């Protein structure tokens, strides 16, 4: 059928085409091989890196936070081992059963239980589910005893923040809690070290020194598969604990301050008048910072938030109060410095029945019957308002504010250390013009002389002021971080022109406490070892009306919100002063009955502790 010649033609055609295709095949094969060469040999490094990036993943672990120590090396914020319960859902045979079993063992509430179930849904089945993050030892042992029945459940001991002195240091240290989005955004270091469960300082020194305290993450390097599941651990790189920070505070005194202000709202500050070391700084009421570490419960939070005594406010630093009579030493000093008055200058005080009338206004002394003719010392001793009205009238607000500022008022004591610290306010004519746009009134000068009106100070400022009076009028820079090296050139430079003036003020304060008719005479200590000098203050919260004066109510009869703040500033021991103290009791009533007695108890302790502190300083303490 098939023609022979056609067959030959067909064969030659097919063979020719086969040859063409053969050549094409060789070329294409060459192309494929060159592509392989390009990928596998030339670009090998790039793809190897990509492959490693694929398979190796690093896990950061929360770093171990640096601790805080008090002056004597006691840990006041440290790390403790928290008993936790971890569970990896896919390793649990019967999740429902196991979780119900745990619920029964730990006695979890329905609410907590639902939270755990919700958390489980959010994570991948091979990720760790933290069932409980801070178990009691009792519950932890219960779990351990029942482990035979709880497949896949892991009791874990993890490291977490603890504040062994609970509410004592809350306002100095602040507290740590779970880092949130805002923390990560605002702080580069936190962003860099962020891991699930990282706790960061939310307030106080914990926040200020976040970058020092945080430490560095331990890093686990794992080989992972395409779904992110860990296959094997390749390396473990241990991180460093954060820096330890030593404070100047004395826990014993801090604790006493807390006890003295028990169920009161107020503040106690104690300062070394030479070194500026803050020995104690307490704001009451306080709260237990440990509650915040694992997230505070809603009930506890509401309790703290709605407390009328405002535990969340650090009254020592951010409480702006009228200083009341505690400003009088500065008024007197300023008058002496500016040679407005001499020690012999007297004013006749006729009590608030016969008030002083100036520029059409009446100004009352606190004492009904009046003090009669008083000189500077007597006026300070008995806290005669009439005398200080007259002195401040003569002095003028600008000269007063100049002196007050030299003594640390109207300015943050710790600078940037605490972001909640307030400036207070020392008014002057220019200040009023700038801030309120109105001229200064003379009447305002007069009430500023007894620490009312615009003037506002924080308790720590009053403490610094007292310290500078006590050390003979020398500039000091308070500090709470022990080893912070300050480079203040004017440290310990005199801030007064005449040393005699300071001595006069110190004497006046001494007589106020230790001489009969002194406002804090009842709170004196006669033993010269503990003897201290002070000045009371009673800051009005609202203007006293004529009706109030007639009623002359006891403190307990006035509504809490309207009661006066009780203040007291003091230094001691008198024969060789070393410590200054400021005490404030919010709505406590009068300074002499409420605040001064606190100082009495405080000074005993302070002086006793001084011996130990001095010995500790010279390391004798360690050699015994």
């Amino acid at each position, binding site marked *: 059928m098939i023609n022979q010649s056609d067959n030959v033609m067909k064969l030659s055609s*097919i063979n020719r085409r086969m040859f063409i295709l053969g050549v094409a095949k060789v070329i294409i094969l060459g192309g494929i091989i060159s592509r392989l060469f390009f990928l596998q040999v030339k670009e090998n490094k790039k793809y190897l890196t990509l*492959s490693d990036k694929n398979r190796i993943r690093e896990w950061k672990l929360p770093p171990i936070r640096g601790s805080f120590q008090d002056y004597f090396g006691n840990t006041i914020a440290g790390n403790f081992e928290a008993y936790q319960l971890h569970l990896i859902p896919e390793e649990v045979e019967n999740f429902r059963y196991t979780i119900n079993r745990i619920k029964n063992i730990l006695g979890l509430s329905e609410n907590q239980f639902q939270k755990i179930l919700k958390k489980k849904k959010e994570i991948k089945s091979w990720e760790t589910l933290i069932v409980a993050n801070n178990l009691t030892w009792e519950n932890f042992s219960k779990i351990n005893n029942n482990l035979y029945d709880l497949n896949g459940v892991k009791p874990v001991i993890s490291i977490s923040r603890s504040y062994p002195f609970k509410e004592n240091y809350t306002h100095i240290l602040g507290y740590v809690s779970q880092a949130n989005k805002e923390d990560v955004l605002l702080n580069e270091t936190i962003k860099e070290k962020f891991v699930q469960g990282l706790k960061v300082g939310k307030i106080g020194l914990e926040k200020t020194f976040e970058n020092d305290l945080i430490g560095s993450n331990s890093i686990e390097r794992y080989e992972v598969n395409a779904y992110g599941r860990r296959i094997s651990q390749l390396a473990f790189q241990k991180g460093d604990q954060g820096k330890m920070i030593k404070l100047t505070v004395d826990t014993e005194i801090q604790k006493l301050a807390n006890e003295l202000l028990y169920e009161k709202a107020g503040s106690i500050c104690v300062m070394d008048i030479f070194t500026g070391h803050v020995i104690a700084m307490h704001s009451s009421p306080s709260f237990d910072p440990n509650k915040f570490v694992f997230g505070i419960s809603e009930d506890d939070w509401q309790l703290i938030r709605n407390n009328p005594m405002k535990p969340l406010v650090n009254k020592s630093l951010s409480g702006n109060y009228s200083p009341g009579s505690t400003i009088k030493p500065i008024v007197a000093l300023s008058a002496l410095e500016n040679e407005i008055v001499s020690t012999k200058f007297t004013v006749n005080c006729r009590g608030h029945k016969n008030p002083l009338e100036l520029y059409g206004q009446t100004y009352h002394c606190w004492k009904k019957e009046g003090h009669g003719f008083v000189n500077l010392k007597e006026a300070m001793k008995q806290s005669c308002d009439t005398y200080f009205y007259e002195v401040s009238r003569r002095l003028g607000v600008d000269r007063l504010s100049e002196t007050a500022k030299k003594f640390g008022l109207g300015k943050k004591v710790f600078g940037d250390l605490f972001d909640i610290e307030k400036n207070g306010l020392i008014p002057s004519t220019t200040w009023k013009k700038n801030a309120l746009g109105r001229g200064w009134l003379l009447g305002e000068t007069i009430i500023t002389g007894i620490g009312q009106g615009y003037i506002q100070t924080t308790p720590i400022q009053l403490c610094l002021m007292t310290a500078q009076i006590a050390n003979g009028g020398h500039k000091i820079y308070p500090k709470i971080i022990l080893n912070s090296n300050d480079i203040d050139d004017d440290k310990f430079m005199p801030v007064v022109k005449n040393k005699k003036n300071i001595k006069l003020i110190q004497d006046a304060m001494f007589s106020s406490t230790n001489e009969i008719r002194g406002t804090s005479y009842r709170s004196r200590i006669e033993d010269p070892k503990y003897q201290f000098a002070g000045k009371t203050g009673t800051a009005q919260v609202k203007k006293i009306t004529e009706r109030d004066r007639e009623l002359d109510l006891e403190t307990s009869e006035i509504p809490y919100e309207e009661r006066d703040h009780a203040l007291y500033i003091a230094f001691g021991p008198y024969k060789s002063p070393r410590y200054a103290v400021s005490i404030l009791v919010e709505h406590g009533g009068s300074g002499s009955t409420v605040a001064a007695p606190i100082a009495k108890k405080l000074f005993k302790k302070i002086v006793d502790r001084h011996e130990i502190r001095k010995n500790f300083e010279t390391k004798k303490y360690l050699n015994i």
Partner: protein
Amino acid sequence: MYLHNRLNNKSNNFFQKIRDLDFVLLISILSLGFISFATMYSTDGGQLLFHTKSHFVKFIIFTILMLIISFFNIRLWFSFSYVFYLVVILMLIWTINFGVTASGSQRWINLYFINIQPSELMKIFIILCLAKYFHRKRLENVNSFYSIIVSTIIIFLPMSLVIIQPDLGTSILISISGILVMWFAGLNHKYFFYSFLMSLLSFPFIISFLKPYQKLRVLTFLNPDRDPLGAGYQIIQSKIAVGSGGLFGKGFLKGTQSYLEFLPEKHTDFIFTLFSEEFGFIGSVLLLLLYAIIIYRVIKIGAISRSYFAKLFCYSYGASLFVYIIINMSMVLGLLPIVGSPLPIMSYGGSSMLATMIGFGIVMSAKIHSKQSIA
């Protein structure tokens, strides 16, 4: 001797047939089977799991089938060519109505003991069918209007049946196989040139007919980094696997890309990436060399075959194998968009292996009966 054989080809006994087997081809296929078995073992993470066992069993069965096919006279395959073609066409139609659906396309027929993919079988039977068709044609008739229309229909019928499954990759491979036969049969070059021009011109038109996922594949091919975790993931991970293999590879069972499950479709279309990652450039070139030997042997058998049918079949089959391999490799090396095309023998998949082995069987039959002429 030759004369003797020619005259007594019917009396070829069984042992003679065994002696006439192409041992180079057989050994190459067996080596390829061994390599594919080892690679499959690696995809299972170094364990004898389902894929490995199943692949091994299929390879053994289909090798035996190949030998059985090769002992039948090539004339038998010649005479049944059209029948086979029609049977597979019927199977394709059956698939459309009663096929088993998996991952969005209806490709399989459930034969109770095995699921078979007729489109894979069509790759081989279209060559068989067209080879028979052109065997009878005179060279001058090859370019006649009538024969062009008939052969085009022979190609278009299965192609369209496969494309509606939908399975673009296989239908392209079927048509390429068909076109290769037409080319070897001596179809004028100008037709290829014109149709190439036509397809270029109609390219934008075709694009609009593509399904969204197919368009995405084309776009991804042009720029894999546009969606590295989505559409571009396969090709990026595939390139990483191949590239990280280096000159000598990461070692057997040590391919991290596959072991850690970064490679998609590592059992089937992307098996070469795993092989390449573990055995490197050297291994890959050796594998290509093995394929080249196989193709060379297939073409060689075609060259020594007396019958035009056998010659046409062997040449076309060799060329098709080459195209399958090149398309698969280009795909995994990022030179072509991703279309479903398995690597012959290496890839997991019974139908593909069955088709390939039937092809080898017919080629071997052509070798054993190379002196056989077909009327």
